[in-house]
């Protein structure tokens, strides 16, 4: 990356880590629906999305490797919770299906817009994969929106469940956009417009969809921050312990 000075490299790494870690962790959570989905198609959907996210995270870790970090497996499997940059939204347990569905809706809408913005990044290798990922994540947002609309307009129970899941996930979703240490640098270098711009674009897109579903967006919600700086809930470390179980026994194992 000739055009990067040291600060640009640090900024790009910070951005890549938060994206890759979000993808890895939500990918793992999605995979926990394999075999447990409420209907077969949802089982397959969450499993497919898990596979997409894990694949995408690997390519993002590969970019980090190009910038001098360790290889993808080492980075994914040898860090402790306090070294992860993922937001709290993605690390919480899958809970009931309504929680996982609304989380999926809010997270994937943000992710789709993030990659849409990155298509124009001055960081060319990131722009290339953003163009690819955008097309894949579009299927995730279509899936999420279809079910949010249907269930929010279903019966009294489904509507109540969707509203309560939204109340629970909304402050966590706002935590996606915690201001990054390098937001200004990223913007100046033309790498990324920053978390605040992403949040505004996200609000502009999710608000009408939630209104159309008849759901009320919680007012004056306090964003749940901390994840981007390594402060996590008690749920992340057990997830990592499970995810890295085989690797920890034998780092050279092939599976």
């Amino acid at each position: 990356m000739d055009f990067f000075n040291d600060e640009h490299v640090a900024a790009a790494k910070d951005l890549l880590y938060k994206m890759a870690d979000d993808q890895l962790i939500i990918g793992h959570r999605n995979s926990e629906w394999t075999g447990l989905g409420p209907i077969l198609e949802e089982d397959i959907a969450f499993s497919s999305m898990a596979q997409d996210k894990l694949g995408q995270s690997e390519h993002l870790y590969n970019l980090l490797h190009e910038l001098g970090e360790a290889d993808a497996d080492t980075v994914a499997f040898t860090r402790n919770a306090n070294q992860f940059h993922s937001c709290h939204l993605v690390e919480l347990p899958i809970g009931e299906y309504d929680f996982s569905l609304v989380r999926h809706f809010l997270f994937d809408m943000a992710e789709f817009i993030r990659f849409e913005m990155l298509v124009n990044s001055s960081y060319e290798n990131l722009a290339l994969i953003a163009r690819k990922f955008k097309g894949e994540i579009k299927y995730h947002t279509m899936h999420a929106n279809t079910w949010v609309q249907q269930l929010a307009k279903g019966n009294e129970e489904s509507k109540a469940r969707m509203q309560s899941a939204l109340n629970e996930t909304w402050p966590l979703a706002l935590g996606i956009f915690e201001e990054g240490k390098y937001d200004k640098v990223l913007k100046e270098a033309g790498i990324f417009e920053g978390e605040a711009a992403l949040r505004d674009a996200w609000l502009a897109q999710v608000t009408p969809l939630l209104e159309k579903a008849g759901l009320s967006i919680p007012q004056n919600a306090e964003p749940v921050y901390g994840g981007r700086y390594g402060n996590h809930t008690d749920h992340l470390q057990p997830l990592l312990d499970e995810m890295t179980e085989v690797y920890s026994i034998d780092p050279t194992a092939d599976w």
Partner: protein
Amino acid sequence: MSNENTTVIPYTRDEILTILKEVKDPEIPPISIVDLGIVTGVDVSDNNDVHITLTPTFAGCPALKIMEDMVADRLKQVDNIGSVSVKTTFDVTWTTDLITEEGKRALLKHGLAPPKKNPGYMELDVLSDTPCPYCNSRNTELKSPFGPTLCRSLHYCNNCLQAFEGFKPV
């Protein structure tokens, strides 16, 4: 030094592509990787060193590494070929529009509805009336945008009452 005067005639790009037509998608064997549109670069040096560039269909496709190995293995069997290297990059973004007509026919024959042309935007209605690969009716509905592999969707034909899979446009 003994081969110093032997003239090596480099393979052409088309000759290499013809050879690679024998390499099939491990998840959908009737279609070759060339017809799938994932071979995005063929470089042959004067002494027949071959460098192939592939592009992923889906970032999470588990067959990426397998296909790289299959390409390398096949080319190493070719007479007078020098070194062989294969790399997967995102330099060319794969879309289903890169699947050749021959490739689409192979998908159909396999019972998989070929992808529609990507209209440049993607909403579920694009997938809603995918023609049935069995009876060609458009009276079909999308059951799920996710299927048994990342590249497939699930559909149902109201005409011949068959469930079928489609190759989803990206």
